């Protein structure tokens, strides 16, 4: 096989963007919905981990990975409903509840996940986009999981739907002004409940991707904070689904940078390369922020932006 060298790094970044971006994409799209409705759920890390564990367990017991994805979505929606329910109580802070759910979600996932570390669950299939490619690395990079395609499609659907459909309008109204939503005849708390449940379900599916496709195994280090960072991505992406897609691809590719550079013999600063996407995000946030403090595109009801 040919020695790829630098071209291999480019290919690895491309492959990494496709392979590793999906959890970021699902969590950030889910959080995008939740935040647009006027609430922040910082607990999606817990949802992601819980979804990964449930998906693996359900796939193992049922023999069907797609049932695993469904189980993850249900568990995620349940955790979302818990978050929304608690936050609809007066004086309960959504950021605090999110962090509490992060602890509970990871705790439950680790508690139930102990017997799932060793066995092998059936994996989600890959769609070989280029089965005839003679060049193995390219063929491997183009083995794409359907969930990735669904996520990309979802980003476009949300982009269009938020602007052009009635549910999208109601969601954004609830996020910008609870009073206006009430005037339109919608209960903002109910809108937020649906939005948080949908967000949780999406985060759960992101977890299913981790355990059932890539890296395709359940263990306690599986997420290592990806859910938390994905929540940060939403504010970075300014609540725009297409920007979430772009940012997720960037984070997926950046995760592949460190290993790919080492594979061609660049060994300086492994840790700094691993942290590069975070530093880059911060730099972009600083560069694009407005000094007056208002975040363009931010839902007015969102506590974190006030």
């Amino acid at each position: 096989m040919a020695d790829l060298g630098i071209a291999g790094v480019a290919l690895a970044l491309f492959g990494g963007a496709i392979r590793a971006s999906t959890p970021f994409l699902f969590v950030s799209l889910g959080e995008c919905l939740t935040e647009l409705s006027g609430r922040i759920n910082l607990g999606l890390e817990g949802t992601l981990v819980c979804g990964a564990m449930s998906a693996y367990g359900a796939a193992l017991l049922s023999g069907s990975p797609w049932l695993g994805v469904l189980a993850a979505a249900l568990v995620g929606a349940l955790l979302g409903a818990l978050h929304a329910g608690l936050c609809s109580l007066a004086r309960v802070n959504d950021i605090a509840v999110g962090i509490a759910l992060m602890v509970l979600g990871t705790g439950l996932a680790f508690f139930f996940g102990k017997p799932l570390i060793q066995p092998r669950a059936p994996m989600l299939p890959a769609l070989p986009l280029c089965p005839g490619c003679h060049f193995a690395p390219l063929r491997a990079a183009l083995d794409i999981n359907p969930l990735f395609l669904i996520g990309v499609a979802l980003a476009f659907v949300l982009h269009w739907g938020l602007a052009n459909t009635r549910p999208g309008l109601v969601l954004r109204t609830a996020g910008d002004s609870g009073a206006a939503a009430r005037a339109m005849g919608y209960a903002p708390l109910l809108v937020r409940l649906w939005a948080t449940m949908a967000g949780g379900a999406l985060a759960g599916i992101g977890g299913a991707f981790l355990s059932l496709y890539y890296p395709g195994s359940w263990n306690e280090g599986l997420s290592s904070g990806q859910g938390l960072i994905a929540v940060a991505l939403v504010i970075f992406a300014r609540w725009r689904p297409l920007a979430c897609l772009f940012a997720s691809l960037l984070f997926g590719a950046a995760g592949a940078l460190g290993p790919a550079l080492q594979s061609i013999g660049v060994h300086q600063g492994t840790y700094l390369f691993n942290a590069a996407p975070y530093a880059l995000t911060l730099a972009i946030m600083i560069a694009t922020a407005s000094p007056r403090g208002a975040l363009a595109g931010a839902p007015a009801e969102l506590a974190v932006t006030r």
Partner: protein
Amino acid sequence: MSLGPSLSRRTLLGMSGGLAAGAFVSSRRARAASALEIGFLYVGARDDYGYNQAHAEGAAAVKAMPGVKVLEEERIPETIDVVKSMDSMIELDDAALLFPTSFGYYNPFVLQEARKYPKVQFRHCGGLWTEKDPKNAGSYFGYIDECQYLSGIVAGHVSKSKKLGFVAAKPIPQVLRNINAFTLGAQRVDATITTTVIFTGDWSLPVKEAEATNALADQGIDVVTCHVDSPKVTIQTAEGRGLYTCGYHVDQAPLAPKGYLTGAEWNWATVYRGFVADRQAGKPLANFVRGGLREGIVKTSPYGAMVPAAARAQADAVKAKLVAGDYVIFKGPVADNTGKEVIAAGVDHGQTDLWLEKMDWLAAGVIGKT
């Protein structure tokens, strides 16, 4: 599909009911007087299908011995938490022998505890006990690089691209020694073989491990092994990319039916049962225990069906010499990958040589940096 031993343990726990749990607690004091209480402390989950599970299997072998009670705690960070866990096993239970199994526990934590509790015995995995350290402390480790060397020989035979890959957590002596042994083994077959090493930066980072394996595959590498806490992700990803793999810590053959050549495994039961038997017999415990294939502390996975006869023959021949104790892996001349001679011609560094436990170089042919 069977869920394996760990689920049955939990299910059993579920079925045995609250009654048993209650009885367990209340009868503890009565039993403590007769049974020797032994504590095992793990840095990760004891079902991790890797490093910690290998130790937990050793603990399970101790449990089967008469007159002992095993206390286990998992996921203890290498902070004051491990001090408090050891304290708690001694103060709230009556642990008389402790096995803290993670490297970062040793200095300062195990040494502090050994001074604080002179009547309790501490044996630590991986540390370098010296005469200056307390006499009730000690360290043990296995020469698993012997198995890595054999894996390297097999890998050298099956590799077509003559490029091997190694997914590693951190550039520390134990890991470097494995990388070097694997490479030297392969170079016995073909001196031009190289090993590309990728450090992920931590002991359990599944996504990074998968990315590292993919990056190795993209560079045309066709045999991969690893040294991280749980090799499952590396082995599975490599199998998915059609690579050959050599396992680590425990046997991972079921994960890679097409590509699993062999692997380096621990057999901690030997060490633990030895210490416990000595303690029960009232004999002093050794302070510094090391051993490899010869002592049965490490073992190799059975060869996969795809391993050719020539590879088996050569590996078995070297293995026989290692078991007999007359084979030297780190034998001069060896140069490092910057061209500097690290072992001069005619110099032998046998396995017991402590110089090897301070390894800070990568052999010529390893693409990577310490």
